[in-house]
């Protein structure tokens, strides 16, 4: 049964990775940049929710909504101020800027909220008894795990519908393929990029709250490690691909949990990255990354 328990833990952790990975992969798909500040937006979301619940005494739902609103705005502002002026700059300049924004957010959080770690109040009960018991005494799922998996499924379904069926979503796909041609269709590329950042950052807020509910330690660097793992998940699944982010995230969560359970807690990251290297050697575009040959 411990195997099944590990699978459940892995999938729920992976669901959170997948939600974060979506932010990386969508922004990469449209803006062709790696937004390394994405992980820190997660942290901001978690802090907003924390203060809404603990200082203002608001109910968890309001805390989450507030975190989504703040992170969405933050994402759009970051894009507007830091990345948009560099639209024509070499990608290395954008990458360095993203790393700079990441430090700015971490240090800003430290000034505003202090460096000391805070204990996050989970938005659903994590009491050891408050679990969905499948087989008494052997197999059970915590409510946070259930919530993470449900959120991930809902987000995936919503995004699939959005990019596949709506005009705005199709315009987004058009932009990700060819911005010049998209412009010729009358699509406003700048507002499309803004919207991508808005969606990605809103998802980061959700992921931040879920992450901190499952692992209730909050500090200004809370977002960086999950951010990097989720970025790995995005590459793993094929960066730019939305189903790839789901697959990469879940696999990464499961591999990480298994490595911790059966190999060594200390080596879990090493195992994760070893698997990534092997996947990239065999499939350089990632598991679901597509290579479309150009016709002339």
């Amino acid at each position, binding site marked *: 049964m411990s195997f099944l328990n590990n699978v459940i833990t892995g999938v729920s952790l992976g669901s959170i990775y997948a939600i974060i990975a979506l932010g990386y992969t969508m922004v990469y798909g449209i803006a062709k940049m790696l937004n390394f500040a994405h992980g820190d937006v997660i942290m901001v979301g978690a802090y907003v929710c924390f203060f809404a619940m603990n200082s203002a005494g608001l109910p968890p739902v309001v805390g989450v909504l507030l975190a989504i609103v703040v992170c969405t705005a933050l994402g759009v502002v970051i894009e507007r101020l830091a990345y948009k002026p560099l639209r024509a700059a070499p990608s290395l300049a954008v990458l360095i800027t993203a790393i700079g924004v990441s430090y700015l957010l971490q240090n800003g959080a430290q000034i505003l909220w202090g460096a000391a770690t805070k204990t996050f109040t989970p938005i659903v009960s994590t009491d050891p008894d408050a679990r969905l018991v499948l087989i008494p005494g052997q197999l059970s799922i915590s409510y946070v795990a259930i919530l993470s998996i449900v959120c991930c499924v809902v987000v995936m379904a919503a995004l699939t519908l959005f990019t596949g069926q709506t005009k705005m979503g199709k315009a987004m796909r058009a932009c990700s393929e060819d911005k010049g041609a998209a412009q010729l269709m009358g*699509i406003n590329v700048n507002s499309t990029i803004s919207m991508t950042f808005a969606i990605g950052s809103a998802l980061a807020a959700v992921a931040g709250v879920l992450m901190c509910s499952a692992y209730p330690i909050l500090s200004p660097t809370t977002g960086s490690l999950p951010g990097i793992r989720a970025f790995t998940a995005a590459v793993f699944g094929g960066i730019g691909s939305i189903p790839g982010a789901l697959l990469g995230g879940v696999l990464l969560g499961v591999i990480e949990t298994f490595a911790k359970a059966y190999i060594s807690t200390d080596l879990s990251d090493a195992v994760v990255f070893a698997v990534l290297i092997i996947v990239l050697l065999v499939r350089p575009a990632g598991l679901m990354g597509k290579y479309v040959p150009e016709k002339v």
Partner: protein
Amino acid sequence: MLKVNDINVYYGAIHAIKGVSFEVNDGEVVTLIGANGAGKSTTLNTVCGLLHSRTGSIEFLGRNLAAVPAHKMVELGMAHVPEGRRIFQQMTVEENLEMGAYTQPRAGIPANLERVYEQFPRLKERRRQVAGTLSGGEQQMLAMGRGLMSNPKLLMLDEPSMGLAPILVEQIFEIIKRLHQAGTTILLVEQNARMALSVADRGYVLETGKIVATGTGDELLHDEAVKKAYLGG
């Protein structure tokens, strides 16, 4: 309809377009011909706002385009079918066409789709197919159909025959003739001078960023200098 007056375009230090002026009247097919690198595509990209001229003016339907961003040109009635087709390879044929109608009211799209499918029956057969799997000729048809989806007053075609087998080139020019007969105003950029001049009302010859000759399609087809340089003697 379109009036281009003395434009100068630079790529960094390179002076690519040197004082080019031309115009396209309502219902005409006008062609810009010239060798590789003469500045044909640069001229088109400047007209549609992707590049900018340092001097002169571009007027479309009496409106100065200087301050109009590229993504607003479609709304004004200008459709640009770019060089190399640049269809959205990972989207389906129908999604590509829908993107062409991005600025159009939703209600008019089904009728437009029908019209384009009538013009290009092959696209209708393949409407659910991913565009990257089409042949080169079909992709060109898709690019042109996508341009027509916005009900353009002016259709600009950049090298529609590029890279196509001779029989497909014939087909593409047949379509251009049909569109012309249906009243579409077309600005056609081509390296295939003979084909372009045979369908055009008027033509301009571009050479290293300057217009060196102009006349009706027939005049240019029989012009000695043009014959020598572009029509193989």
